[in-house]
């Protein structure tokens, strides 16, 4: 590498000066590094880390609410004499606090993807050595991990609390494991749905409303119709109606396979056969949202 300044002689009238610009010869970390960076930035961003103090408030508050509820449940379990288990099942926790989870994904999914579209930074990402695949995978994985932290942390608190309270170790570990599998499924499903909806609009505010609408409107519609089906005695319909909203899908899967008691009216959760249908729908939704995102980013703008 030559650094000394010199002149290159040409003809007498024109002459090119070498003023010592150097070409880059450092390490080029490459595609995997860019993908990891995008993942960690998105994950940190979901909790407001590395962003302004104002944008930390909501995600931290929601995370705090989740953990606080878990702590209160543990405190109740410890304070009450003769308790042999926690006042709530591990798998039921996320279902009870679905409003908090919904608000988290609704507020963070648009901030993860809508602002990239709005400020046209997506072309800048793709000028780096990452492919469409890397962007989609990194964003999906980051959102799912953020949700897993949000839903898994309170379960860990419950588990540690249960062990400290000297509840049956084997039983608690089994319940905890089932709960973690269920929230992992929920995280991937919600992350996929949230990002698909958010990626369709560059407006953050509208994205928030659209994500929450997808989650609550479907749940509101399904639970209303389920309640009516319960009142009119058509219990068979309750099972199948659960297929039409994300949270009842998760409820159905964990009722069928993870030993949860269903939150459906009358506890009419699906059995193993219907549970397979639930699982297929969940996996299809996850795969579908991945496919839609891949299609969405074929064109960088809107």
């Amino acid at each position, binding site marked *: 590498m030559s650094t000394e300044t010199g002149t290159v002689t040409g003809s007498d009238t024109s002459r090119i000066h070498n003023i010592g610009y150097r070409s880059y010869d450092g390490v080029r970390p490459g595609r995997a590094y860019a993908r990891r960076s995008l993942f960690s930035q998105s994950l940190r961003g979901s909790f407001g880390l590395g*962003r*302004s103090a*104002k*944008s930390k408030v*909501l995600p931290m508050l929601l995370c705090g609410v989740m953990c606080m509820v878990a702590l209160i449940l543990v405190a109740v379990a410890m304070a009450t004499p003769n308790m042999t288990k926690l006042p709530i099942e591990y798998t039921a926790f996320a279902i009870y606090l679905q*409003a*908090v989870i*919904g*608000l988290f994904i*609704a*507020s963070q999914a648009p901030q993860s993807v809508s*602002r990239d579209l709005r*400020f046209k930074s997506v072309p800048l990402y793709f000028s780096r050595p990452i492919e469409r695949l890397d962007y989609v995978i990194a964003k999906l994985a980051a959102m799912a991990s953020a949700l897993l932290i949000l839903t898994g942390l309170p379960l860990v608190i419950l588990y540690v609390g249960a062990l400290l309270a000297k509840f049956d170790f084997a039983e608690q570990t089994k319940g905890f494991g089932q709960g973690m599998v269920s929230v992992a499924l929920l995280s991937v499903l919600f992350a996929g749905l949230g990002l698909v909806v958010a990626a*369709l*609009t560059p*407006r*953050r*505010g*509208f994205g*928030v*409303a*659209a994500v*929450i*609408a997808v989650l*609550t*409107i479907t749940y*509101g*519609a399904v639970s*209303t*119709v389920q*309640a*009516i*089906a319960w*009142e*009119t005695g*058509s219990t068979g*319909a309750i099972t199948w109606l659960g297929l039409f909203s994300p949270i009842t899908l998760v409820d159905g899967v964990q009722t069928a396979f993870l030993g949860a008691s269903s939150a459906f009216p009358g506890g009419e959760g699906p059995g193993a056969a219907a549970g397979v249908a639930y699982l297929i729908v969940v996996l299809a939704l996850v795969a579908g949202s991945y496919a839609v995102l891949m299609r969405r980013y074929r064109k960088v703008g809107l």
Partner: protein
Amino acid sequence: MYDPTVARLTYRALLGRRRAAILFVLPVLLVVIAVAVRAFAGADDDVASGVLGGFAIATMVPLIGVIAGTGAIGPEIDDGSIVYLLAKPVKRPTIIFTKLIVAIAVTMLFSALPTFVAGMILNGNGGQIAVAYTIAALVASIAYSALFLLLGTVSRHAVVFGLVYALVWEALFGSLVPGARTLSVQQWSLSVAEKVAGDGLVTSDVGLPLATILLVGVTVAATWYAGQKLRALKLAGEE
């Protein structure tokens, strides 16, 4: 107090492109549910009241209120194009009032009308249920629009706060803490509906006089304060 040009621009912002899609989907869903329930369960006053109260008033009206109320002013403040409007010789309270009228009209159109249609499908206005819930939706539209329009001028995260109010406060706290129900637009509007509907099909936790005072008070105060906010609006950069 009413500026036709501002109104036209707001209508276009609210009903243009994708935003309109979500506004159309919700009412269609309500009507589909109504048809399905009628087909399954037949005409029944309790069921009709359950669908209209549980889905239409509790979920649909607040959501449409959030979208229309914050959507009337939020995006303009968000992308900074509000300065072009504020630079015109139009009084700031006039802008707010006009936007409020538009938001109310849109919310009423997309919430009260489908509520009425769904009510008619469910039980053909038996026990005045369809009319009662339509009136509740109309009243709630006004209060929600004013409230969420104010939120739109106060915060950049208006939609989130609006949703927190609608979902967490009204739905979650409202069902757990009885006192929270006194401070809920939904209950105020239901108390108006209670007056219209026959024999205890609609129930509210708030008396009619108190509900009326609170409804009018909240609407007027929110509109006035939103006008004041807009007079001294500070445009912040995106964080």
